[in-house]
Structures are given as structure tokens and as C-alpha cells.
């Protein structure tokens, strides 16, 4: 048997407008950006998107855990990040959008998770 792995992509290739994997506007509310600061309490390294659980301290001192949707594990691995890159307790800043269903109110996608995924120490 012969194996050949190829990358079928070109930066300038576009046959049709790009479609994301999930209906962003149905799941998240672009009118509700949120900025979260807290520490990682759990990582779900699952497809199609990673989920990072971040505990924040609210103004009244109580704590709340938010789930943050991240890129796919495949993309993150290719960018040099793996599950151990974000150990529990890591202080992070998440810049994203809140879930459309505010009653659930614990979901944001994190479009800038990596640029903002920096320990604050």
C-alpha cells in the first residue's frame, strides 16, 4: 500500500463564501460581548470544539463557572497547544460573546482565546 497525505487548501482559494461549522448567530449573541477574568477549572478536549471551564469571581464576591467554546483540538494541536498547555488554575482572560440563551448564561465562544490565554502573573 502507498500512503500520501495532502493538504487540499490554498490561502487564495475560495469557491464559495466560507461557512462555519456551526451557526454562530444562532448559538451566540454578537450584541453581548463579554470579558471574563478567572482561572481554569477544567478543560474538555473534545471535537468539534474544545470547552474550557473558567471560574470567575463576581463583583459580590461569589464565584461562577463559565464554559468557553474554543477552537477544535486538531487546530490547537497544529498551533502547538495541547491539553497540558492549560493546566487547572491557570489565570486567563477570555474575550468572547455570550450565549444567546442568557438564562443558561454560562457560554461564550472565545474567538480570541489564544491571544488572551496568557497567565496574568
Amino acid at each position, binding site marked *: *500500500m502507498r*500512503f*500520501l*497525505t*495532502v*493538504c*487540499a*487548501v*490554498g*490561502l*487564495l*482559494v475560495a*469557491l*464559495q463564501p*466560507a*461557512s*462555519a*461549522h*456551526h*451557526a*454562530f*448567530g*444562532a*448559538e451566540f*449573541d*454578537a*450584541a*453581548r*460581548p463579554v*470579558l471574563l477574568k478567572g482561572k481554569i477549572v477544567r478543560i*474538555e478536549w*473534545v*471535537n*468539534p*470544539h474544545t*470547552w474550557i471551564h473558567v471560574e470567575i469571581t463576581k463583583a459580590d464576591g461569589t464565584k461562577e463557572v463559565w464554559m468557553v*467554546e*474554543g*477552537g*477544535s*483540538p*486538531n*487546530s490547537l*494541536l*497544529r*498551533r502547538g497547544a495541547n491539553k497540558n498547555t492549560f493546566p487547572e488554575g491557570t489565570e486567563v482572560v477570555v*474575550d*468572547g*460573546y455570550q*450565549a*444567546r*440563551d442568557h*438564562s*443558561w448564561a454560562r457560554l461564550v465562544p472565545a*474567538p*480570541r*482565546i*489564544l*491571544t488572551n*490565554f496568557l497567565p496574568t502573573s
Partner: protein
Amino acid sequence: MTAASGGTGGYNYGWLDPGSTYNVVDGQKRASIIIDPPNGHAPPMVPGAMQRFAGARARPTSDQTESTDPGLEPTPGAYDDPERRPLGERCLIGFGSTSGPPALPDYFYNNLHQIVQTPESVVILTEMVHDVRIVRMNAQHLPKNIRLWLGDSVGHWDGDTLVVDTTNFTDKTRFRGSSENLHVIERFTRVDDKTLLYRFTIDDPATWTKQWTGEYSWPATNEKMYEYACHEGNYALPNILKGARLREKEAAEAKGAK
């Protein structure tokens, strides 16, 4: 997308993996895949083809353009049932015809294909949603009553070019509005040690006024293929449906308040 306030912005490179090479064919960087018609645009659709699947029975497909707002959905009821969501969103097959045929690039991520060749068959594994196509070499097509989501592919060699002929599609994938009788001819040519030229011709008289052809290069890579078992953690689907229910509730309340 742009943020309503602040600098949140759109997806960053933690999400995207569009590749690192240009589409180069015959030494030219190409901005369009379609080479016939020469203007780079698919030919017009035949009358009625665009409306063929309209209506309540229409089901989203893998290459349906994403709607970003429940109110703008082209098909009524598209958020009423998980089975009305696009095939890619449900993690059933890749979105945007990544596995094909025709196999198209995706600027988001998971852009690798692995080709495994044996004397009897050629297997094309697509990383996006791990779609697998098995091309039976020098074989006859299946009977017309046996229909497959990715079609039935048979192959033969034309000199050094692998020619793959695919028919027997279902009405589930419907590439760009094509009919079940879509016929795709793909040609894989190894133009040098590091490059495959992938060319496809779309033949579906029930949908387009004439055949059309595209091509782009598939550069070899040493990168690893990763599994994409997408369904297990697909929290997005229930969140999308919940979001739609909220929108309906808000719309009903707004109506009641008037």
C-alpha cells in the same frame, strides 16, 4: 463578524487553520478554482433547479450556506428539529463539500486528505468529519437503486492520471443544488513529487446548463492526520436550538406587547 462593542472581533487563529500554501497550478497562483467556463464562474442553472428543493420538505445539506439569524433562514422551520440542521453542523459529513465529490478546500481547519492505494481500490480519507470514500478500480457502478451519500465511485488509470467517476448520489448532499443524478468526474495527476493536481468536472444537466470544471493543487505534507470524532462533544447543536427557542419567545412577547 464585528463586535457590537469593544474589540472582541471575530475568530482568531486559535480557531483557524486555513493552510500555509497558495493554490499554484502551472506556476500560477490561482484565485479561482473554476477553469471552465473560463470566466471562473459556474454556468447558469436550468430553470427550476434552484427551486427544486424549496419548501417544507427541503433538508439542509452539507454545503448549505450558513444562516446567522433564525429570521433569515431560507427554509422555514430550519431550527425546529436537530435533523433540520445542516449535515456538517450535525457532524455527519464535512461541511462545504470537503470530502466531495467534488472535494473542495475549507479555509477553517481540518484540510488534510490521506490517499491509500491498493491494487483493487483507492481510499480517500478526508480529515473534516473523517469522511471516507472508497474508489473501486476498474469496476462497474452499482445498480441505480443503490444510492450513497458520497456517491458510488469507480476509478481507472488514464496514463498517469487516476480518473474517478462518481454517480448514484442521494438527495441528501445535493452539491450546490445538484440533483440525485449528479455525475462527477475527478482526475488526480501527480505533477511532481510534492504536488497532486486535482481536477473535477460537474455533469448534471438537470441543474446546470452545461458541464463545468475546476482544478486546484494538493501539496504533499508531513503533517499528521487527526481524528475528528465531532459528534461526542457537539454542545453547539443544543445551544443553537435553545437560542432559536429564545428568539421565538422574544418574538412572541414583542408581538403580544403591541
